[in-house]
C-alpha cells in the first residue's frame, strides 16, 4: 500500500486506515490483558497470608484465692476467667460494638469507649453494643486452664 507523498489533502480529512486492523487490535488487547492480569496478581500481595499475632489458644493457671464472680484476666489477654461452684468459664472482654477492651467490674463489664454495659454473664445491659460478649471455649487440666480465644461456645457453658 505504497502511497506517494506530496499530495497534501486537507488536515481535516480522515486518514485512510485499514478498515480492520486485526493485528493492532489483537496486540493492544493482549497488552491490556497481560497488564490487567499482572495488576490482579499484584493486588494479592497486600493481603497478608500469615498474621504476626500469637496463637489464639493459651494456657494460664488461676490464682488459688479467686473468689466467685471475680474476674481473672491473664496478662496480655482479652479474656476474663471466672470460677464458681459449677466450674470455670471464660468470657471475651472485647466489646461487640467497636472492639474496645471492656473492664470487668462488680456489676459486670463496662466499656470505656462508648458506654456499653454488660451483665456478669456477658449480656448487654445498656449502650450501643449489639451482641452479648461471647463465651470462649475453656478446658481444665492439672490445675491449669486452656482458653481458645478463637472458638466461642454457648452462653452458660462451664467446665
Amino acid at each position: 500500500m505504497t502511497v506517494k507523498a506530496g499530495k497534501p489533502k486537507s488536515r481535516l480529512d480522515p486518514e485512510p486506515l485499514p478498515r480492520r486492523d486485526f493485528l493492532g487490535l489483537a496486540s493492544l488487547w493482549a497488552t491490556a490483558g497481560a497488564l490487567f492480569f499482572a495488576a490482579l496478581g499484584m493486588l494479592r500481595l497486600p493481603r497478608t497470608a500469615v498474621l504476626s499475632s500469637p496463637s489464639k489458644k493459651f494456657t494460664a493457671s488461676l490464682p488459688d484465692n479467686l473468689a466467685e464472680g471475680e474476674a481473672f484476666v491473664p496478662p496480655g489477654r482479652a479474656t476474663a476467667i471466672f470460677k464458681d461452684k459449677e466450674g470455670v468459664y471464660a468470657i471475651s472482654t472485647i466489646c461487640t460494638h467497636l472492639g474496645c477492651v471492656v473492664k470487668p467490674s462488680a456489676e459486670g463489664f463496662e466499656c470505656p469507649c462508648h458506654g456499653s454495659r454488660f451483665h456478669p454473664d456477658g449480656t448487654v445491659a445498656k449502650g450501643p453494643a449489639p451482641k452479648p460478649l461471647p463465651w470462649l471455649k475453656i478446658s481444665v487440666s492439672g490445675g491449669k486452664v486452656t482458653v481458645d480465644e478463637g472458638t466461642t461456645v454457648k452462653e452458660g457453658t462451664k467446665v
Partner: protein
Amino acid sequence: MNQADQQPTHSQPTDALSEFWKNLKAAPRLLKETAFRTGKPTTDRSRSSFVFGNVFLHLHSVRTHRWSLRWSTTMGLGIASTSAFLITLVTGILLMFYYKPYTDVAYQSIKDLHFVVPTGRFIRNIHRWAANVMVICVMLHMARAFYTAAYRKPREFNWLIGMGLFVTTLGLSFTGYLLPWDQLAYWAITIGANIAQSPRELTDIHNITTWFDPGGLNRLILLGSDKVGPEALIRFYLLHIMILPLVLVALMAVHFWRIRKDGGLARPADATERVGETLEPVQPVFTEKPTKTYHLAALVKGRTPAVGNGPEGTVPSMPHLFYVELSVLMVTTLICLGLALVLDAPLKELANPSVPENPAKAPWYFLGLQEMVAFSAFMGGIGIPTVVLFGLGLIPFLDREKAGTGEWFGGPGGWPLVKRSIWIGLGAALLVEAFVIRFGWLREWFPGIPQLIITFVNPGTVLTLLYAAYSVWLVRKWNSTRAGALGLFTCFLCGFLVLTIIGTYFRGPNWEFFWSPADWPKH
C-alpha cells in the same frame, strides 16, 4: 428576600425532572466525552489532539520522524530503561508493604517476603532483575547516544542530564543493596562506605586529615555512624525509596522534555531522503514550513529545531510511536519476568559485623572499580571514576564537528576505527591485568613504598594513561576530536568489561585470582 424571588424561572417543574433523567441517562456518554475530549484519533488533527491533550503523552511530539522509529536508530534502549524503572517503581512500592527498615527485623521481613507473602518472592525477584536490566539498559543507551554522536549540538546538555540519570541509577541500585541486611549487603556497603572515605588516602599523606577530612565526612554523612548499622540502614532506605527516585523522576522529565525541544532524536541531515517515501499519505497539520516556533504562550525569538523544517519524513506519533514504545515496555517486562521466574534474588546469612564475607563483592557493575580499588581505594573508587565522568561530560563541548551525527559510529574513522579500538582496549586491559596477576604490583616488590606513589601509579592509572595516549594519537592521525573520542570511549568500555568480568568470575577469597569458583578453598 421574600418568597416571590424564590420562584423558579422555569414555568414547568416537571421539565426539570425529565431533564434530570435525560442527563442521568447521558452521564456515561458525557463522562467519556469529558474524559477524552477528542473523538477517535483517525485524522491527523485528532491524533495530534490526542497526544497533546493527554497529560501522559504530551511529552511526545505529535509527529515523529521515521528515522527515529527505525529499530536500528535506538534499539529502544531509552524506553527500555524507562520501562525497567517503571517496573522497579511498581514492584518497589509493593515490597514496601512488608519491608521494615530496622536492623533487627529487616532480614526477617525479606524472609517473609520470600516465603509467606502472596506473590512476594516473584515480586522481589522482578524488582531485583528489573534493577539489573535498568543498569544494563542505561549503560547501553549511553553507548548508543555516544556512538551515534547524539550528544552534539543542540543536545549537549541533555547528554549531561543523561549522565546524571546514569549515576542516579547506579546510586539507586547500590542503596537497594543494603536493605536485605544480609552478609552480602553488609560487606558490600562497608566497602562502599570506605571507598567514600578514601580521600583520606591523600589527606593522610599530607597529614591534614585532622582538620581537613572530606573522606571522613563523606562516610559520616553516608552511614550516620562510624560503622554500618541501624543509622546507615535508615539512610539508605530513605535514599532508595525517596530521594533518589525523586531525583531520577525529575531528571527523566527534563531528559524527555529536552528530547522534544531539541527536535526529537538525533538524525543525519539527509535522514528524510534516506528513509525514503512514506508508506502513508502525508496529511500535515502545517501545510507549509513554519518560520516561527510556537512556544506555550507566545511567539518567541530565536531558532529552535522546528524552524525551517516541514513535516516531511514524519508520521503521527499516535499510533506509530506508541506501538513502538508499548512493545519495548512489554519486551522489557517479558525479560524481567522470565529472569524472575528462573532465578531467585540472592539472600545470604544475616549480617554479621564480626565475620566478613570472603570474598565480599560489590554489585557486579562496581566490580570493575573493585578490581582497581584493590590497589588504591582513592584512585580506583573515586579518582578514575571522577576523571571518566568528567571526560564524558566534556565530550559534547570538545567535539563540535558535524560529520556523522545520528549515524552509528559516525565520524572520521567510523566502524574500522572502533573495531581496532575494541582490540586495543581489550588487549591493553588484559595485558595489564595479566601482568598484575602474574607479577604483582609495586607493594609486592618494594614493601616500604609510600602510598602516594601507589595512589598515582597503579594498574588503573596505567590503563587510563595507555588509553589516553592512544586517543591522542587518534586525534592527531585523523585530525578529529571525534576520532579520539570514539577510540577513548570504546577503550574504556572494553576496560570496564574486562575488569568487571575478572572481578565477577575470576576473583575469589582474599581477592586472589582463580580460574573458576570451583578452585576456591573449600569451606
